[in-house]
């Protein structure tokens, strides 16, 4: 088995619900807590397993906002595991999930240096490295109804932009999506072979912009007035 996520950059609206759901589930999960620093202070910070960043791709008028949620890619060639001196980091042979044994970690940060995707964050309170577990304490829980045996981020996504499954199974939904939508990997040139795969935005009809606002005498005067008048 090669478990991982497919993330659809076409439908992701960048709402951060996946990150919040992740934090809510995992802070009381097996590798919790996800410590917050100064949560009510001026510069609140803390440990997150999932972060969403927002980019502008292309140049106006052919530009587009793309939201990219990123968590552990559960790489096939996980250098974070190879560089770990203590054996705290490991990759499960049965399903490919990369985990940290918190009882063994000495907090040297070396695995975070080896990770190109920023998936690992040191918990400064606990002094150990923390990372996405692919909700390992959820996906195998037989107490839960089968449809809920998925990572918290996947279940919560309101845009249905996240999918969980086995990439080794050609018939799985994730394999089908990667095939049909031309799934892509981040920084493949580094050779980490990330499992998580991103679906590129669909090609849609372009929205005409040339007729939005014609430049007339009146609009020119308005523009000039707006420039001159201070708020």
């Amino acid at each position, binding site marked *: 088995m090669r478990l991982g996520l497919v993330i659809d950059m076409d439908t992701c609206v960048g709402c951060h619900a996946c990150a919040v759901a992740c934090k809510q589930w995992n802070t009381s999960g097996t590798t919790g807590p996800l410590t917050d620093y100064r949560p009510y202070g001026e510069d*609140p910070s803390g440990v997150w397993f999932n972060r969403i960043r927002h980019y*502008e791709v292309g140049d106006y008028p052919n530009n587009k906002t793309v939201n990219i949620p990123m968590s552990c890619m559960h790489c096939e060639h996980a250098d974070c595991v190879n560089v770990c001196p203590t054996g705290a980091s490991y990759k499960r042979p049965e399903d490919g999930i990369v985990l940290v044994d918190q009882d063994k970690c*000495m907090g*040297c940060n070396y695995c975070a240096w080896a990770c190109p995707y*920023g998936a690992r964050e040191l918990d*400064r309170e606990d002094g150990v490295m923390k990372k996405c577990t692919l909700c390992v304490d959820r996906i195998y829980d037989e107490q839960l109804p089968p449809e809920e045996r998925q990572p918290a981020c996947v279940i919560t996504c309101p845009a249905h932009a996240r999918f969980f499954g086995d990439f080794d199974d050609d018939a799985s939904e994730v394999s089908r999506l990667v095939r049909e939508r031309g799934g892509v990997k*981040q*920084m493949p040139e580094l*050779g980490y072979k990330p499992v998580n795969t991103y679906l590129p935005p669909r090609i849609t009809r372009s929205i005409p912009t040339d007729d939005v606002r014609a430049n007339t005498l009146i609009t020119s005067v308005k523009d000039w007035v707006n420039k001159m008048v201070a708020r």
Partner: protein
Amino acid sequence: MHPAFSVILFTVISGAGYGLFLLLVAFHLAGIGPVMSHGELIAHGVAALGMITVGLMLSTGHLANKKNAWRSFMRFKTSWLSREAVFAVLFYPFAAIYGLGVLLQGHEVGPLAAVAGAIAAVLAVVTLFSTGMIYGCLKTIRQWNTALTPANYILLGVATGAVAFAAIASVFGNATAMHAGVAIVLLLIAGVLKGIYYFWISRVTGPTINTATTFNRATVRLLDTGHTAGTFLTDEFGYDAGKNTTDTLKMGVFLLAFGTPILVFAAILSGVPAIVAWLGLVAALAGVIMERWLFFAEARHVVRLYHGDQHT
């Protein structure tokens, strides 16, 4: 990369210690240079082991969970950090046998102590190589992912060790032209290699914001990182010293780490009292501390691409 002072001091001090030990064994056992008195041999050995030990103790300073530090010997098979720890510890019993031989037998050590000394010297170089490979093996940081990284670590350690060796020898009135010559040659090689390194990393290669975000056929700009305050990632990888600072410090590196000690030893060769080698040692250590700080400050991790850098 955020420059951690505990790691900077560790690599500089223990690096010089390993270099000093290598020079001691080479001069003593291979018979290079003059015969050393009992007292001088002990002074070199104590200084070398002292620097190595202080350095290694400093290295635990950046660990967030020190109680698990002993586990770092566990993954020798895959981790250079683990290999460094194993070799650093393995060095001690061999150095101890050699040291005991010197302590009891003086200059004319027996074959057991001599063999142990030679093995310890090899382990010293292997430890320096492992330290360099901790950084050199990381594909995520192009400024480190080069064969020049372990080469620099070995040569800077051995060169600063040679300066320390001459300085200590001068106290015993035993610093000869051989000491000065060896130090100059090592400093020159280390300096040239560091120059090549700075040239090498000034050429941009590797991943870009395009390959990081998968959009290879369009310009990509960061709109928002998604967080209002700093995170672990921005603290650890976001460090930016600015080009003016790094350029100034680079001049300082060449002036202090290589220029000043070479001039000092050239002066010694032309008749100035050998005790000024200590000036060379102070300059060399200050210069190598700057070099090590730059080594971190100039390293740009690929995670920066996700925070808006177009390239590393």
